[in-house]
């Protein structure tokens, strides 16, 4: 649920990177953090990860400010969820208040069932929060395209993007930062357009949750 603060001319939006274990969600945030151009201070990437295995325990969090649009500062909060199946309660917590989702799929052939299972889990967790995937802007990222044993994109589209309304999808190799910014820019674009379409009547508000 985006926060629009008219007093400080700020828009805050929450984007969650979702997907199966080891698909590259954290790598996406690391690469955004390393490579993004920012005007002021760059936000810190906070990783609540296992100290020994570096697997995400709770979430990764990256606050990041985008370019101002007509005087409005747009602040994005990027989160990842832990991909491991046992951490479902945590995934539900992180999804609370979500505005947009990047579903990161692992392109390796033997990961297809995990991708499908994870997407079903996403829909289920959204339902538990009384949300519907059809009402939330989301994009798909087919990650790890640089590996040798990847499934064709058409096949992944058939498995994950075979709904009434197809969403934008991107091929990526996150460690090389390929496809990372394309994915992020598309979800932010969709989110801001949705905010614009939802907020139409002029009011003297200082802050509102959209």
């Amino acid at each position, binding site marked *: 649920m985006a926060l629009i603060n008219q007093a400080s001319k700020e828009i*805050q939006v929450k984007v969650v990177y979702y997907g199966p274990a080891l698909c590259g969600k954290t790598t996406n945030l690391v690469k955004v953090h390393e490579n993004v151009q920012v005007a002021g201070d760059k936000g810190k990437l906070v990783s609540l990860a296992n100290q020994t295995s570096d697997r995400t325990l709770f979430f990764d969090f990256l606050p*990041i400010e985008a370019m101002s649009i007509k005087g409005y500062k747009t602040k994005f909060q990027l989160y990842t969820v832990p991909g491991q199946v046992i951490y479902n309660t945590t995934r539900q917590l992180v999804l609370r208040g979500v505005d947009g989702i990047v579903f990161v799929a692992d392109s390796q052939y033997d990961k297809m069932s995990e991708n499908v299972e994870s997407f079903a889990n996403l829909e289920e967790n959204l339902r538990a929060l009384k949300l519907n995937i059809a009402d939330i802007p989301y994009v798909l990222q087919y990650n790890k395209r640089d590996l040798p044993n990847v499934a064709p994109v058409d096949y992944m589209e058939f498995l994950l993007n075979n709904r009434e309304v197809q969403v934008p999808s991107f091929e990526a190799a996150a460690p090389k930062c390929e496809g990372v910014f394309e994915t992020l820019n598309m979800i932010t*674009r969709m989110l801001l357009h949705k905010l614009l379409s939802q907020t139409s009547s002029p009011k003297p508000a200082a802050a*509102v949750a959209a």
Partner: protein
Amino acid sequence: MTGTLPQLIEEDVEEIEAIFADFLNKAEADSVLLTAEGGFLVSEHGNTKKLDTMSLGALASNSFEANKAIAGLIGEPSFSSIYQAGETFSMYVQSIDGYNLMVVIFPVTTAVGAIKYYAQAARDEVAKVFNRAKKRDPDAGLDLAMMNMADSSQIFRRK
């Protein structure tokens, strides 16, 4: 479209400022953040210049939500507050209305009992401001038509 944070006019914002200034003074706390559901930072008060308030607000909010989930596991309807003791500074997080939180940072020399006592009074006052704002105009929208989205393809630029 129903928000968890009501529309606040300037008068509300000023009143919240005054409530938290009074709270900081009476409780001898260092700073207080107001956060909304999802970890968004709404406002900050007190000595916040050296704090990464955006990360602090998000982490405190998620920590509070995790504790609510723990409450459910032990059969409690919810924990209404959490307290983390440090060596120099401590943190007290309290729900205002089930969605919005106040995150209080205070030196360990200040008694947590005093923080809790004054925080409850501040919570009630802020909740009154929220209730009044909700009654005033619960379904109002916000005009963002002045935002030009024609050039939104490159919102984030790579180095």
